[in-house]
C-alpha cells in the first residue's frame, strides 16, 4: 500500500490526551499526553505534526495568556509550547501547513507563520469570542464563526494588504449575521467561489450559505441544538450531530422526500442512544462518518448502510474534537520511524519553533518565506539517458560538411591512415629489399655453383 493510512485523532476538554487510531484497521497508535482542548482546538499542521490550543483551567492565575501545544507524530510528550497573548479556542492551519490561525476569546484572530513562529497578523474579527475557524478549499479565504452569532469570511490577501483593505468598505468579504445565537460549527464545501458554507448554531438551525453571493440559501431547523456538522464530499447531504445524541442527515443536493417525518430537508438520523454528539468528521472518501460524543466514545459509522463499523473508546469524559488526517510517512511503518526522524532532523525540519506572543517587528522585510524540502518525483521515473541522442546528433554533424569537430576527427583519422600507410610502405620496402637481397644472393650463388 503506497497510500498513507487514514488516522482518526480525538481529544477532549478533560486532560485525556489525544487518542489516535487507524481508521481502517482499528489499531490504536500512540496516545499523546497532556492535552485538554477546547472545541475546534485540535488540528494537524500539514500532516506533519499535531497542534492543539488548550482550554484554560479556571483556577490558575496565569489565565491572561493562552497556550498552544505541538506534538510530533512519534512522541507522546508535548514537544513545543507556545503562549499566545490570550486564550485561543479554535485552531486551524491551511492545507500546506504554512500558516496557523487561532481565534481568541476576545474575538481577535491571530495568524502565525508555522515555519518561523512569527505572528503575521492579528485583527479584531468579532465582538465576542471566536468559536470556529476554517480555510476554504483553495486556502485563500478564512471563515470564522463567533459567539455573537456571526459568520465572517476573510480574504487572506486583504488581511495582509493594508492598501487593499483601505480601499474596501469593510475588512471582511462577508458577514453573515442571521444566526441569533452562538455559532457552534462551520464547514465549507468544494468548488472555489461556488462553494457552499454550512453553519450550525445554538439557535437550533443549520444555515447553508452561498460563498459567491454571500447569501443564505437554505435554513434547516432541527429539533435540537446542533454542535457539529460534517459535509459529505459529494455534497448531496450533510450530517449534523445534535445534543440529543442523534446525527441528523440533511439534504443539500440529494433528493429529499418532502413528505418525510423529520422536518424540511432532514432525511433521517443515525442514533445509538448516546449522549450529545460533540464533533463529527468524515473519512476522505466520505464512506465513514466518525462521531465523538459526550460519553467519551468515538463511533465510526458506515454512511452507506448507517451501521456502526467501529467504536473507539477515548476517555471517560467527553470527546470534543475529531480530526481525520492522512499522516505523512512517520507512523506508517513503525520500524522506519527512527531513520525517518533522523533524516528529518538532519534537514532541519523538526517541529516548528514556538509561536510568537506579539508581533515583534513591523519591518516588512522581516518576512521570510520558507520553501520546504521537495523531491522531484519525475526525476526518478524518467531518468534521462542521453547517449543515444548525443550519438544521433554527432552522426548528423558528421554528415554535415564543414563541421569543425567532424572534420577534426576526419583529419585525425586521415593522419592515422597516413602513418599506417607509411608504415606499410616501409614494410613493403623492407620486404622488397630482403627479397631483392635474397634473389641476388641466390643468383650469385647459382652462378658460382654453375661456374664451379
Amino acid at each position: 500500500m503506497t497510500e498513507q493510512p487514514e488516522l482518526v485523532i480525538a481529544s477532549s476538554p478533560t486532560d485525556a490526551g489525544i487518542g489516535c487510531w487507524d481508521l481502517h484497521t482499528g489499531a490504536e497508535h500512540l496516545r499523546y499526553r497532556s492535552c485538554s482542548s477546547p472545541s475546534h482546538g485540535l488540528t494537524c499542521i500539514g500532516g506533519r505534526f499535531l497542534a492543539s490550543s488548550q482550554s484554560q483551567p479556571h483556577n490558575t492565575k496565569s489565565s491572561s495568556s493562552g497556550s498552544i501545544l505541538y506534538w510530533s507524530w512519534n512522541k507522546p510528550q508535548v514537544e513545543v509550547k507556545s503562549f499566545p497573548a490570550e486564550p485561543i479556542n479554535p485552531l486551524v492551519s491551511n492545507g500546506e501547513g504554512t500558516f496557523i490561525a487561532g481565534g481568541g476569546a476576545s474575538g481577535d484572530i491571530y495568524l502565525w507563520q508555522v515555519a518561523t513562529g512569527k505572528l503575521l497578523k492579528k485583527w479584531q474579527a468579532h465582538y465576542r469570542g471566536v468559536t470556529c475557524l476554517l480555510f476554504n478549499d483553495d486556502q485563500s479565504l478564512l471563515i470564522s464563526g463567533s459567539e455573537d452569532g456571526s459568520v465572517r469570511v476573510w480574504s487572506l490577501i486583504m488581511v495582509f494588504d493594508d492598501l487593499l483593505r483601505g480601499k474596501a468598505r469593510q475588512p471582511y468579504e462577508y458577514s453573515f449575521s442571521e444566526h441569533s445565537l452562538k455559532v457552534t460549527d462551520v464547514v465549507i464545501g468544494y468548488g472555489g467561489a461556488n462553494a457552499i458554507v454550512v453553519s450550525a448554531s445554538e439557535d437550533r438551525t443549520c444555515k447553508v450559505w452561498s460563498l459567491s453571493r454571500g447569501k443564505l440559501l437554505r435554513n434547516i431547523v432541527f429539533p435540537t441544538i446542533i454542535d457539529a456538522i460534517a459535509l459529505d464530499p459529494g455534497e448531496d447531504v450533510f450530517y449534523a450531530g445534535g445534543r440529543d445524541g442523534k446525527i441528523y442527515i440533511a439534504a443539500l443536493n440529494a433528493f429529499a422526500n418532502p413528505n418525510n417525518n423529520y422536518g424540511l430537508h432532514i432525511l433521517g438520523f443515525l442514533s445509538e442512544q448516546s449522549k450529545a454528539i460533540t464533533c463529527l468528521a468524515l473519512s476522505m472518501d466520505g464512506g465513514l462518518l466518525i462521531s465523538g460524543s459526550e460519553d467519551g466514545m468515538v463511533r465510526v459509522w458506515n454512511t452507506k448502510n448507517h451501521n456502526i463499523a467501529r467504536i473507539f473508546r477515548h476517555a471517560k469524559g467527553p470527546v470534543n474534537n475529531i480530526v481525520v488526517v492522512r499522516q505523512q510517512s512517520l507512523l506508517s511503518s513503525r520500524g522506519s520511524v527512527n531513520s525517518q526522524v533522523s533524516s528529518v532532523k538532519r534537514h532541519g525540519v523538526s517541529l516548528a519553533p514556538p509561536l510568537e506572543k506579539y508581533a515583534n517587528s513591523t519591518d516588512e522585510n522581516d518576512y521570510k518565506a520558507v520553501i520546504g524540502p521537495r523531491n522531484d518525483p519525475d526525476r526518478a521515473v524518467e531518468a534521462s539517458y542521453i547517449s543515444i541522442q548525443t550519438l544521433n546528433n554527432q552522426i548528423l554533424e558528421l554528415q554535415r560538411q564543414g563541421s569543425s569537430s567532424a572534420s577534426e576527427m576526419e583529419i585525425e583519422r586521415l593522419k592515422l591512415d597516413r602513418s599506417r600507410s607509411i608504415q606499410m610502405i616501409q614494410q613493403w620496402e623492407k620486404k622488397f629489399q630482403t627479397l631483392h637481397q635474397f634473389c641476388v644472393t641466390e643468383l650469385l650463388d647459382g652462378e658460382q655453383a654453375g661456374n664451379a
Partner: protein
Amino acid sequence: MAASSDYTIENMYDVALKPRLLRSLLKEYVPDLKHQFRNPPVLSYVVSAIKTHQLLSESAPLESDEKLIENWTATVDSWVNRVVALASSDTPDKCWAGISLLGVTCQECSRERFLASYSAWFNKLLLHLQSPEDSHFVKVATCASLSDLFTRLNGLPNAKKDGISFSSKLIQPLLKQLNEDKFDAVWEEAVFLLCTILDIFPSSIQRHYDGVEDAIVLRLISGKCSPSMLEKLGYCLALLPKSRGDEDSWLLMMQKIMLSINNLLNDSFQGLEKETIRTEAMRLLLPPGKDPPPPLGGQSLSRETADNKMRPEHLQISRISTLIFCCCKLLTSSYPFQVAIHVLPLIALTKRVLMVDGSSSPGIAYMTTMKQEFLCSELPVLHSHTLDLLSSIVKGLGSQLLPHVGSIIRLLTNYFETSTLPELRIKVYTIMNVLLMSLGVGISAHLTDVIVNNSLIDLDERGTSSVAQQKIYPETTAKTSHKKRKHASTSSSLEEQPDSDVFEVEMCPTVGSLSVKIAALEALEALLAVGGSWRSESWRVNVDHLLLVVTRNASKGGWAKDGRSKLVSEPTTMWGNYQIAALRALLASLLSPGRTRPPHLSQGLEVFRRGSREIGTKVAECCAYALLALEVLIHPRALPFLDVQSTDNKYEVGNKWFSGISDRAANITFHIGTSKKAPDESDSYNDDLYADWMRNSEDSDTVAADHGNDTDKSNQPQATLGDPSSEKLPSLDTTAVKDSKSSKLKEVAPNTVATKIPMDRDEVMAESQLSEETSKHSEEILPSKSETLASISSGKSSFQSSSLVSDGNALNPTGSEVQAEKLVLGAKNNVVSLGSEKFVDSASRKEVAEASDAGFASSLMMNVDRGKELMHESDNESMESIPDIVDVEPDSD
C-alpha cells in the same frame, strides 16, 4: 518452440530472433578493429534496432530454452567485447563509435551485466576524459556515456558508495576540461554530466564547490552561450547548493547572484532611476552592518573578457538576464533541505527593473541619446526575464507569498497599463494565470478588473473601435444599482450590434497579436474557472458575450487541421491554438455559474457541435470534451440517495471489533426513508429525471384533489401529504411513510411542527436570493407576510388553503383571501427562482420548488389544524428569528 528455436524464428517477438539479430548487427554494421569504418550513420540504425528489440536486455520468458539463453548471453558477451575494444582503439572514429555504443550498452544491458562490469567501463571512459589529445568528438561522446552510466547507477541500490567515489574521481578532470575547453559542444555535454552528478551524487562535488562555481559563472557571463547552453548552466548553478546540502549555501548563492544583479543594474540604469531606489535596493540586499559575501564566481565578474565583440550595454543586459534566470532556477528547483528566504528583496528587484522603461526623467544625471537607444533596445529582453522571475516567485513560494500579493497585484496592474509589446503582455497574462490558480478565489476579486479590461482590449477585433469599448468597461465596474442599469444597456448594445459588423474581421492577424490573444483567452478562462461567480455581476455579461463572438469568429474560416501544420507555415498552428483557447474559454464561460442560465448556451453548443465533427483534431477533442461537460446543463439531474442494497459494502467489518458491538448494533434504529426499498418498486426508482417529469404532469391536479379529501382527516397531516404522491408515483417510497404513520407518530410530531418554521425562513431566504428588482418587489410583500399567514391560519376552511397550495388551480377564495393567495403565490415564485439560482440544474430547482410546496402545504395544514389557539403564535414566529420547538402536541388524538 524450445527444440527448434536455434534455427527457426516464429515471429518478431521470438526470443530466438534476438541473438541472431545482434550477431548480424555485429557482423555487418558495427565496425571492427581490422577494417576501415566507412559509414558512421549506420550506428544510428544499430542503436535503434537494439532499442526496439531490446537486444541487450537478456530477459527471456521463463519457459525459454536454456540453450537459447546461453546463446544470447554469448552474443551479448561478444558485443561487449567488441564495444570495449573499439573504445580503446586509437583510430578516433572507431574510438568514438565504441564510446557511444558503450553508453548505449550502459542504458540497455541487463542489470546483472551492468553490476558486473560498470567499474571497468567507468575506468575506460575516465581514461578518455583525462587524455588531452582525444578529439572533441570523442570527448562529447565520453561525457554523454558517463552521464548515462551514472544515471543507471542511480537506479541500483548498492552502488551508491561506488557512485560517489567514481564521481569524486571524475570531478577533477572534468573541471580541467571545463576550464580549458572552448568548444560549446563539449561544454554542453560536460555541464550535463555535472548536472547528472549533482543530481544523483551531490556530495561528491562538495570539495570542488568553488571551482565549479567559478567555471560555470565565467562561462555564463561570457555572453557567448547559446540559449540551450544558458539553460543548462543556470540549472547547474542552481543545483550546486545541493552538493553542500544545507540552507546556508543556497542562501549565499542567492545573495551573491542578487548582489551581482544589483551591481550590474546600477551600471546599466545610471541616469534612469532615482538615487533613492538604488540605496533602498542595496539596503534590502545587504542590511547595514553586514559584510558582503565574496563576489559570485570569485573575481570573474569584474574581469573584463577581452575577446568580446559585443557592446558593453548588450553584454551587461545579457548578463543580468542570465543571472535572473539562475534566480528563477534556484526558486523553482527542488532541494532536500528547507530554505527561508526574504521575499521583499526579490519583489523589490522585479519592481525596480519593471519600473524602468527607458525614459530618462528630467533632473537626473545626463545620459547620451546613444546610450539610451542601446538600453531601450535591450530592455524588453530584460523585462521578459524579470517577468519570468516574478512567475518563478509565484510558483516557488505558493501560499507563502500571501503577505506580498497585494504589492504584486499593484505592480502588474501598473505595468499592464504601459506595456504594449506582445511578448511582455503574454508573460503578464501568464503570471496572472498562475496567481489565479495558486491563490484561488481570494485573489480573483483583485485581478478581475485588470484581466477583463486588458483582455477586452486585446481581444477586440474591430481595431479602431477599441477605444470606445475601453470606455464602456469602467462604467460597468461600478457597483451601485443606478449604474447597473446603465451597465445593462451597454451590454445590450454590445449584443445588439449586428453580427455582420462583428464578423467583418481580418482573418489573418499577425502572429504576435494572435499569441497575445491566446494568453488573454487563457487568463479569462482561469478567471472564469476560479472566480466566475465571485461578485461577477458587473463583468460576466460582457465577457460571456465577448467569448462567444471571439469563438465564432475564430471558427468562421474553418477549423484548424492538425495534420496540415507541418507543411504550412507557423501561423496555422498558432491559429489552431487560438481556436482551442477560444473554445476552452467559451466552455469556461458556459460552465461557470452565473446569475442566470447561460444566455449563450445554444449558440455555444452549436459551435462545439460543429467543432466536434473535425474528427481526429485537437479542436474536435476539445469540443467533444465541452459537449460532455455541457450535457449536465442540458439534462440536469439530482441523483437520488445512495441505494444501499445494490452497493457492496466495502466497510463491512468482519473482525472482533464488530462482533464486540454487534449486540448493541441490534438495538440501533435507523430512520432513513429513502434508503428502504419496497420489493415491488419499479425500475424508475433511480430515474430521478423520470420522476420529475412524472411529477410535473400529475402534480397539480393530484395535490389539489387530494387535499380536498385530506381535510377530513386533517389530524394526520404528514400521512395525508405523503399518501397522494406515494399512490400516484412509483418513484416515491411508501413503506417509510406508512411506517411512520403507524408506529412513529411520537417522533414525527416535533419534526412536523418544525417544518412549519422553515417555511417562513425559506421565504426570507428566497427574497435574499432575488436580483435587485425582484427583491424590491418582495420587500413589499414582507411586512404583510405575517398577517397573511395569520389570516390563513385563522382561516375557516381548509379547502381554501389547499387551493392555495395547488397553485390556485381549484376554487378561488373570495374577499380578503384572494389577496392572501396572491401573496403566498408570490412568495412561492420566489422560492422557485431561488432554486434556479442556487443549483444550476433545473431538476433540483423543481425539487426545491416542490419541497417548498409541500412545506407550504404542511405549514398551512398545521395552521389549520391548530386553529385559533395557535394564531397568535404563528404571528410571532414569522417575526422572530429563533424558531423554538412548539411544545403543544399538534396531534389531537
